[in-house]
């Protein structure tokens, strides 16, 4: 509804300043509130005292970090879960970039037959339902004793992170000046040298952004990590949070969970905000989540 009224005011002309501006600001405020309010509620709830957990005041009073200390209690094992997430998401990202960069380069630069088919296949693989990969892989990993191992999470993660990365990198590579590579080859570089000395440094920002997007995708993964691991020490952060048991005797320790949620999310949010322009460019050009 806000959109329509804003659209109307927008096409009404460029001179009518103040009502349009007011409407626009109201609309923006609504969008920002929509996006941030639930997140804000998570932060507020995390900073309440556990005994105030069900308070609905918009500001935590009195302010407390007891929920955060509860997260890091030894028996919760959250430190280990964070480390596991870091290992799984980090390895997935590195593997993905190593493999995906070459493919994206080929797709962006070279002219070859079946290119559309190749692109299509890569996009299509990222759309397969995860469960149809998990069931056979779970069976396989059980048989070869890979359950509760990092590789049992990293390898299935590649199935959706790799297409995402190739797609994003491809979009970034296409933007780069073709002529430079050509000039380098005229100057006697081989194609490999042109790639290493010209393309790689130029592509670094795109690769970095793709790394962030890939890392976030792997970090946020839940279903694979849930299926492949049944030992607490190997759980990733997302699985661990969802399985927190009450430290303060409530049915579900929401305060602790919100605090853990803040810990898992805030670093991502900060990185995303710093790199927002690049990430938005990556997301919209990739068109893939």
């Amino acid at each position, binding site marked *: 509804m*806000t959109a*329509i009224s804003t659209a109307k005011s927008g096409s*009404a*002309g460029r001179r009518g300043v103040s009502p*349009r501006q007011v409407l626009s*600001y109201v609309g923006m405020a609504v969008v920002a509130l*929509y*996006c941030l309010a639930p*997140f804000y509620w*998570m932060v507020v709830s995390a900073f309440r005292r556990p005994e105030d957990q*069900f308070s*609905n005041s918009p500001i935590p009073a009195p302010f407390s970090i007891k929920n955060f200390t509860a997260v890091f209690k030894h028996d919760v094992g959250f430190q280990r879960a964070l480390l596991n997430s870091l290992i799984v998401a980090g390895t997935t990202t590195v593997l993905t970039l190593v493999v995906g960069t*070459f*493919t994206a380069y080929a797709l962006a*630069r*070279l002219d*070859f037959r079946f*290119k559309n088919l190749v*692109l299509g296949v*890569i*996009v299509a*693989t990222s*759309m*397969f339902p*995860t*469960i*149809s*990969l*998990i*069931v*056979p*892989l779970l069976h396989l990993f059980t048989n070869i004793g890979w359950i509760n191992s990092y590789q049992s999470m990293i390898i299935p993660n*590649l199935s959706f992170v790799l297409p995402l990365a190739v797609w994003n990198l491809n979009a970034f590579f296409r933007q780069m000046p*073709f*002529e430079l*590579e*050509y000039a380098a080859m005229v100057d006697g570089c081989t*194609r490999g040298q042109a790639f290493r000395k010209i393309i790689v440094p130029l592509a670094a920002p795109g690769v970095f952004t793709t790394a962030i997007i890939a890392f976030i995708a792997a970090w*946020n993964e839940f*279903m694979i990590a849930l299926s492949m691991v049944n030992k607490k020490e190997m759980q990733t952060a*997302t*699985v661990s*949070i*969802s399985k927190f048991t009450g430290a303060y005797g409530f049915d*579900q320790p*929401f305060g602790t*969970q919100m605090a853990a*949620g803040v810990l*898992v*999310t805030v670093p*991502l*949010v900060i990185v*995303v*905000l710093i790199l927002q322009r690049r*990430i938005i460019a990556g*997301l*919209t050009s990739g*068109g*893939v*989540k």
Partner: protein
Amino acid sequence: MTTTTAVPSAAAPVKKKQDVQGSGRLAAVLLSPTFLVLALVVGYPIIAALRESLYQKSQGLDANGFVVKGDKFVGLKNYTDIFTGVKSDAFWNAFWNTTFFTVTSVIIEVALGIAMALIMHRAFRGRAFVRASILVPWAIPTAVSALLWRWVFQADGVANAIIGQQVLWTTEGFHAKVAVIIADTWKTAPFVGLLALAGLQLIPAEVYEAAKVDGASAWRTFVKITLPLIKPVLLVAILFRLLDVLRMFDLPFILIGAHKDSVNTLSMLAYDEANNLRYGPAAAMATILFVYVAVAAYVFVKLLGADIIGEARSRKSGASKRAKKRARAAQEVTA
């Protein structure tokens, strides 16, 4: 958005050079690692699932009275069991839940996403701030957002405090579906908004000027100009959302819980079967979901002409092409 022919003019001389150097072979070398990995982590499981769905675990005694464990070929029994057997109720329930979630959340998300994009597009100042805040729901892990909404939807949580009613959101019932849809919409509508905004920014201002001169109303301008011009971007966004909701798992699993009929999706059902070591039925169910997703994608691409590849190819390929595209867009509208 058929941009197959729109190769940037600068590429023409380079292309000749590439052919001389044997691009095809190089491409094969560069592509092979990705395809190897995808074959292993996607191709193999899909085929293995297909094979596994024809087997059932059998446990019995052989002629000498020893316990025999192994997989027995049962043909299509797993499938017929799912469609008509004892568990068919659970399957059809999950099937309709999945479909219901997909249709409702995609419609809501697209409507909200367009609204957000329009608001941001008309913004005077503070667009950067809103764009930044839009990325927050996207960056939050689904598992964490599910917990967050579970907390919001508690019996004495803030949602009930706001509406002033006592709804037990996370118990069985239609309200559980509503809770899932709200949570899903919150996380993904901003993403649709981002894509739609990217589409809006490709529409040249002159088009709107022309519409204004012709005296078109705001609604008519929106329906006749804005929507058709952002349609390609929207179709891609819808397709991705569609396929994403069809495989929804984390959100209902954490927000409401496992084994809840109101929100059980096909992914959750298959996961449950696999978790109970009934790999055959689980694989059959996963295969059905796979076919469902594939058919949905095919129909969407064929009927509505969602051009994913073309979209990605054309969107980010330099100023010259964008200018060309604008010219074409302007032409389409004025024509």
